[in-house]
C-alpha cells in the first residue's frame, strides 16, 4: 500500500472515530450534568467528586484530540475547579449550582468546529472582537486601579488582585487571556519571579505572562525568562506600549491558518502532503491542471506554493517563471519539493524564481516545519512592506487600494459598506507641547483602540500624520455610527502621561456609506467621508458626522 492510500484510509478511520465520539458526546455531557445535579440536591460524597474530576479530565484530553479545542479548554477549566474541591475536601453549595450551569455550556462547544466560519459571518456590525481578559496582580492598589482603568479603555476586561494567593485561588476556577504580575510583593517580601511556581494554579495557567516591576534587576529578568515570560515592563508603566505587546501576543494566537497550494502530478503523494499539512492546521489547495495556475492562485490566494520540479507537461521552473511574470505575485514564496539531488540542477532551479528546495523523501514533521517557518517569515515581510511601522496599520497606498476593493465588493454583493475617516483633534498642539515621542504614543494608542474595538474583517489604515481610515464591510451607517461613537468615547477616556502631568485627547470623524451614495467609487467615498470629517471639525470637534 502506498503512503497516500494509507493516509487516506487512516483519515477515513479517524473521521469515523471522530463521528462516533461526537455521537456519544451529548450523552457524556448529560451524564456529567446528572452527576453534578445529584451532588447539588443530595449532597456530596468524596466518591462522586472523584468521578466528576475524572470524567472532566477525560473530556479535556479527548476533546483536543478529536478537534474540539473549545470543549477541551472548557472541560479543563471545570476540571481545575473540581480538583480544588478534592484538595480542600469541601464543596461550596452555591458554587455547585453555578457549576451545573457551566456544564450546560459544554454542549454549546460541540458544534464549534463546524460552526466557526458561519459565526464570523453572522457577527454583523454590533459585535466588536471577543473580550480579552487581563489579570493584574499588584499589591499597590492605587497603581493597580489606575493601570486597570487604562487597560479597560482598550476594551480589555481587567480583574485586579492584590496578592499572588488571591489570584491563585481564582485560577482554580477561571483563566485570563493575559497574566500581568508585579515582581515585588512587599508585605510578604516575595519576589514573584522566584515564588510563582509555588502557586500551583497560577503557575499552571497557559496564557502569556508579563512582569511589571519598579526595579530593573538582572536576576529577576533571568527568572522571568525561565518562566517563559513574554515581557518585563518597568514602572512607571507606559501603558500604550504594554497594550501594544498584549495585542501582539493575542494576534499571534489568533493568526489565521497558513494557505498552501500544492502543484504536483503525483496524486498519491500530493494527497499525503495535503493531509499532513491539514493535520497541522493549514489550509491546502491542490492544483492538478497547470494551465489553470494563475486563475487558481488568484482565487485561493496562497501564501506559499509547494511545487514538484518535474511534471509531464511543464517543469516546475517554467511554472515558477510564469508566476513571477505577474507583479502582484512576485514575492509569493515558491518551494520545490523534489527527489532532485543534483546540486547544479537545484541551483539552476532556484535561479528561475524559486525560494527554496526540499528533498523528497521528507518527514511529515520536517515538511510542516519548513512550510510554517516560510509562511511566517513572508507574513512578517509583507507586514513590513505594507504596514506603517508606528501603528501596524496599512499605509496610505494600501488602504486606498483596500477601500476600492471593498467598495466594489459591496456593490457586487449589494451589501452596505461604510468608509470612515478620522482625525485627532488639535494634534499639532500635542506635538508642540509634549514633543513628538509623546505624540507618537497618542497615535499608536488610537491605532490599538481601533484594532480592539473593530472586527477582524474591518480594514484599518493610517492615512496621513494623525489621520486614519476605517473600512467596515457589511456594515451600514447606523451601526458604523454606534461603533465609532464607542471608539470616540474610549479615546477621550485615555490618559496620557508627560513628565508627571496627564492629558487626554479627542477625535473627530466623518463617514460615508455605499448605499447612500449609489454611484460613488472608493475614491469618491473617501472624499465624501473627508468632507463629513471637516463638517465635524467645524461643528466643534469631538464628534462624528455622516456625509450628506
Amino acid at each position: 500500500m502506498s503512503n497516500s492510500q494509507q493516509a487516506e484510509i487512516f483519515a477515513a478511520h479517524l473521521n469515523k472515530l471522530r463521528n462516533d465520539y461526537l455521537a456519544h458526546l451529548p450523552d457524556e455531557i448529560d451524564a456529567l450534568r446528572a452527576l453534578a445535579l445529584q451532588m447539588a440536591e443530595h449532597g456530596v460524597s468524596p466518591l462522586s467528586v472523584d468521578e466528576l474530576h475524572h470524567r472532566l479530565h477525560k473530556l479535556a484530553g479527548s476533546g483536543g484530540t478529536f478537534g474540539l479545542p473549545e470543549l477541551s479548554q472548557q472541560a479543563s477549566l471545570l476540571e481545575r475547579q473540581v480538583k480544588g474541591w478534592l484538595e480542600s475536601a469541601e464543596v461550596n453549595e452555591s458554587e455547585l449550582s453555578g457549576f451545573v450551569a457551566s456544564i450546560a455550556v459544554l454542549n454549546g462547544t460541540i458544534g464549534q468546529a463546524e460552526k466557526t466560519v458561519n459565526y464570523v459571518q453572522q457577527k454583523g456590525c454590533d459585535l466588536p472582537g471577543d473580550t480579552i481578559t487581563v489579570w493584574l496582580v499588584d499589591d499597590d492598589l492605587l497603581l493597580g486601579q489606575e493601570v486597570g482603568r487604562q487597560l479597560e479603555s482598550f476594551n480589555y476586561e481587567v480583574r485586579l488582585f492584590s496578592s499572588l494567593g488571591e489570584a491563585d485561588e481564582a485560577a482554580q476556577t477561571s483563566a485570563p487571556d493575559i497574566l500581568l504580575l508585579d515582581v515585588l510583593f512587599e508585605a510578604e517580601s516575595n519576589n514573584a519571579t522566584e515564588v510563582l511556581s509555588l502557586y500551583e494554579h497560577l503557575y499552571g495557567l497557559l496564557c502569556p505572562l508579563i512582569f511589571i516591576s519598579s526595579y530593573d534587576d538582572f536576576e529577576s529578568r533571568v527568572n522571568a525568562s525561565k518562566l517563559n515570560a513574554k515581557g518585563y515592563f518597568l514602572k512607571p508603566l507606559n501603558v500604550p506600549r504594554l497594550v501594544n505587546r498584549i495585542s501582539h501576543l493575542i494576534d499571534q494566537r489568533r493568526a489565521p491558518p497558513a494557505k498552501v497550494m500544492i502543484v504536483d502530478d503525483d496524486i498519491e503523494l500530493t494527497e499525503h502532503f495535503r493531509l499532513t499539512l491539514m493535520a497541522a492546521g493549514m489550509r491546502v489547495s491542490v492544483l492538478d491542471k497547470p494551465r489553470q495556475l494563475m486563475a487558481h492562485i488568484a482565487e485561493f490566494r496562497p501564501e506559499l506554493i509547494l511545487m514538484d520540479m518535474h511534471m509531464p507537461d511543464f517543469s516546475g521552473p517554467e511554472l515558477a517563471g510564469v508566476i513571477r511574470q505577474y507583479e502582484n505575485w512576485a514575492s509569493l514564496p515558491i518551494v520545490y519539493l523534489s527527489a532532485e539531488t543534483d546540486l547544479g540542477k537545484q541551483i539552476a532551479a532556484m535561479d528561475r524564481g524559486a525560494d527554496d528546495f526540499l528533498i523528497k523523501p521528507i518527514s511529515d514533521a520536517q515538511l510542516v516545519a519548513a512550510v510554517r517557518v516560510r509562511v511566517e517569515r513572508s507574513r512578517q515581510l509583507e507586514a513590513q512592506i505594507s504596514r506603517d511601522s508606528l501603528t501596524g496599520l496599512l499605509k496610505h497606498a494600501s488602504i486606498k487600494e483596500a477601500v476600492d476593493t471593498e467598495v466594489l465588493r459591496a456593490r457586487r454583493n449589494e451589501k452596505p459598506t461604510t468608509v470612515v475617516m478620522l482625525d485627532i483633534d488639535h494634534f499639532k498642539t500635542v506635538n508642540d507641547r509634549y514633543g513628538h515621542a509623546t505624540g507618537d504614543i497618542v497615535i499608536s494608542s488610537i491605532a490599538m483602540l481601533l484594532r480592539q474595538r473593530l472586527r477582524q474583517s474591518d480594514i484599518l489604515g493610517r492615512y496621513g500624520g494623525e489621520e486614519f481610515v476605517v473600512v467596515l464591510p457589511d456594515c451600514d451607517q447606523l451601526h458604523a455610527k454606534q461603533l465609532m461613537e464607542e471608539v470616540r468615547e474610549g479615546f477621550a477616556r485615555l490618559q496620557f502621561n508627560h513628565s508627571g502631568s496627564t492629558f487626554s485627547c479627542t477625535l473627530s470623524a466623518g463617514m460615508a456609506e455605499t448605499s447612500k451614495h449609489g454611484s460613488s467609487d472608493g475614491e469618491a467615498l473617501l472624499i465624501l467621508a473627508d468632507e463629513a470629517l471637516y463638517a465635524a471639525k467645524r461643528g466643534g470637534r469631538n464628534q462624528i458626522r455622516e456625509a450628506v
Partner: protein
Amino acid sequence: MTSLQRILYVEDEADIQAVAKLALEMVGGFEVKICSSGAEALRDAEGFAPQLLLLDVMMPGMDGPSTLAALRAIPSLSDVPAVFMTAKVQPAEVAHYKSMGAKDVIAKPFDPMGLADEIKRIWDRCHE
C-alpha cells in the same frame, strides 16, 4: 539498532485508546497491546514482551507512575523505555516524570497524525 515493533499502551479511556491504536498501527506500523488499567498491564505485560511502554498519567485506581513502578519490578521489564502521556506538561512536571524513569512525556491532547513519528523520535533517541 533493533527497530521498534511492540508497544504496550496503558490508557483507561476507550476513545483515546482507539485513536492512539489506529495512529500507532496504521501510521507507525507498530504492534500495539492495549491495557485499560494498571492491573491489566501487570497481568499482560510480561507475556507481550513490549519494547516500549506508553502510559497515561492519570487513571483511576493505579495511576501511570505507580503502574510504571510496579512494571519495573518485573525483571524482564526493568529497563524497557517508558513514555508518559499527560495533559499537564509544565517543565517542572516533565522533569519530575523523567526522574521517575520516563524517557519522555507526550502532551495530551496529542495529534493523531504525529503520534507515531513522535514515538519513533523518542525510540531513536533512546538508541543513539
